[in-house]
């Protein structure tokens, strides 16, 4: 018991002691692990930028910002993919947002915790089903079923302005911008729901009680107390979902139809950035490979910006809620 003996008998006790190597080493390890996040993010940007230089230099700005993607003639315009990515993600968000907000309100304002927990498990299950399985189901089950529905909608809107240009025309096999949007909506619903739920849960009880004390119904309380408080954070949650939809690869690759075109017809086949990377990278070489990596860089940049903004909004609204 040499180290622990009472100091009382030991005369002036040796209180001076260097901080152990292990102690400092552990702190350094933890710091390195934390820094790794920043290192990886920077490396992603640098390495993909390096690899896409030859795309930028051979295609030029005009080439990049064209909708013409034709590897055979060495033309690598990105815009058809950007268009498809945005359109399918917007469709996904339009479908997913009301559902996600509805479910998060149900979980936080309507049902007691005992019932909320199993509902959360069910929503989490959606998130755990692998995206390639959603894609498989989308192309083999959902798309053939939607094909018939698309057909009747198309003939229904035939000749009606606007609607015809959105929903008219034949869909070849059910894969389309819209099908991709539906599958993406299923996949982003859990993330939007869980973030929105977190934000809504920070609404102070005193605000809610204030509304109830004025004789408000639950819905009036939600409109009057919950919504103003959590609006900002919910917008952030929706943005995170939008970023997720844009980057989602497998489902889009399987159900969007794999044809690079820009059209207002939502039931037509299209393409998205992650889908074209997944489908064509395998046989790509030279400028084409560089172009596909460049598309990845572009996707990275967009999703980083969206997430920066979204997380900023979520964090700020959470901080405001805590301060209130």
């Amino acid at each position, binding site marked *: 018991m040499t180290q622990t003996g009472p100091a009382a008998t030991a005369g002036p006790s040796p209180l001076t002691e260097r901080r*152990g190597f*292990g102690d400092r080493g552990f702190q350094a390890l*933890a*710091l390195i*692990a*934390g820094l*790794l*996040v*920043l290192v*990886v993010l920077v490396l*992603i940007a640098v*390495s*993909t930028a390096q*690899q896409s230089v030859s795309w930028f230099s051979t295609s030029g700005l005009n080439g990049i910002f064209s909708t013409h993607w034709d590897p055979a003639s060495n033309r690598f315009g990105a815009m058809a993919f950007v268009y498809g990515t945005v359109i399918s993600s917007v469709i996904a968000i*339009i479908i997913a947002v*009301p*559902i996600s907000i*509805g*479910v998060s*309100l149900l979980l936080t304002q*309507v049902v007691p915790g005992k019932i909320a927990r199993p509902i959360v498990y*069910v929503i989490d*299950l*959606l*998130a*755990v*089903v*692998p*995206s*390639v*399985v959603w*894609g*498989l*189901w989308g*192309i*083999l*089950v959902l798309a053939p079923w939607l094909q018939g529905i698309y057909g009747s909608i198309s003939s229904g809107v035939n000749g009606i302005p606007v609607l015809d240009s959105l929903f008219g025309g034949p869909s070849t096999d059910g894969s389309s911008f819209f099908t991709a949007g539906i599958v993406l909506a299923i996949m982003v*619903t859990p993330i939007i729901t869980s973030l929105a739920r977190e934000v809504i849960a920070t609404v102070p009880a005193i605000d809610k009680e204030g509304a109830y004390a004025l004789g408000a*119904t*639950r*819905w009036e309380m939600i409109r009057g107390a919950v919504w103003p408080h959590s609006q900002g954070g919910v917008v952030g949650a929706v943005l*995170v979902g939008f970023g*997720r939809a844009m*980057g*989602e*690869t*497998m489902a889009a690759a*399987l159900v969007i139809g794999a044809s690079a075109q820009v059209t207002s017809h939502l039931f037509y086949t299209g393409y998205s950035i992650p889908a074209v*990377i*997944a489908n064509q*990278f*395998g046989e790509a070489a030279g400028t084409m490979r560089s172009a596909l*990596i460049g598309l*990845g860089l572009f996707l*990275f940049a967009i*999703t*980083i910006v969206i*997430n920066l903004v979204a*997380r900023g909004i979520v*964090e700020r609204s959470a901080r405001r809620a805590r301060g209130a």
Partner: protein
Amino acid sequence: MAAVTQQPAPGSAGPVNLREPAGWRRTKNGLMTGLMWLAFLIVLVPLVLVLYTVVSKGAAAINWQFLSSPTIPPNIMPLGSGGMGPAVVGTLEITGFAALIAIPVGVLGAVYLNEYGGNGILAKVIAFMSDVMTGVPSIVMGLFIYTIWTLQFGYSGMGGSFALACLMLPVVIRSSYEMLRLVPNSLREGSYALGASKARVILTVVLPSAVGGIVSGALLAVARAAGETAPLLFTILTVEQTNSNLFSGANTALSTQIFANATSPYVGAEQRAWGAALTLIAITFILMIVARIVTARFTRYSH
């Protein structure tokens, strides 16, 4: 769907207008609550459908030979010859190694954020960027590892592990960080008061106290990663024979096989895709259930 965010126009309510205002308010409240439940039911539909399809079609394909056969047959072959053994081995090895990298690093990162970083600017930046990193598309992680690893060292299961580890890292950091925050400060003080160094306090008191939540969060991250496809496409390539060597040579995984088979015109390939899908879902669900059990049994401090 607009009903959730917009008040229904009073004019549209028809006979309801004739009632007392309180009656309409009650009705509207009930209507909105009904819509919230409807939203939940809408979420249930695809989940039930996909699980039903995967189980009913996948069960027909799965047997011991399907799971263990060392050869994936050509697409044209009908069900019954060969199986998905190489993909099962690949998925388990690649995901396992990714977890081996990402969990320790992620937990250490969380330790930095909660125990060392304090309110410092660096810790705040890392915490924020780690949240942002969860939004990086998985295919970008695949391209990233392709450019910095695969181009130099060739295709291997390990490259896929690196890509999956990059995806898991921010998730593990976030979930571990939340768990460390729940450990009461009085425990740290109790350990310091016995003369423990900071590293000791963390290793012998803080981490053991939070271990339930950390393990459960990490398992969920592993479950998500096991189903990922995009990061593996250009890092492991594909093979038809089992390659149990993670560190060299092309490999394959259940997810990439599903992707490859999904668009094949052959019935046998499609059936094998469903079988692989059921296997993959079973793996992820088992991980998730284990995570729930760990949460229920070993969580000491919670909100």
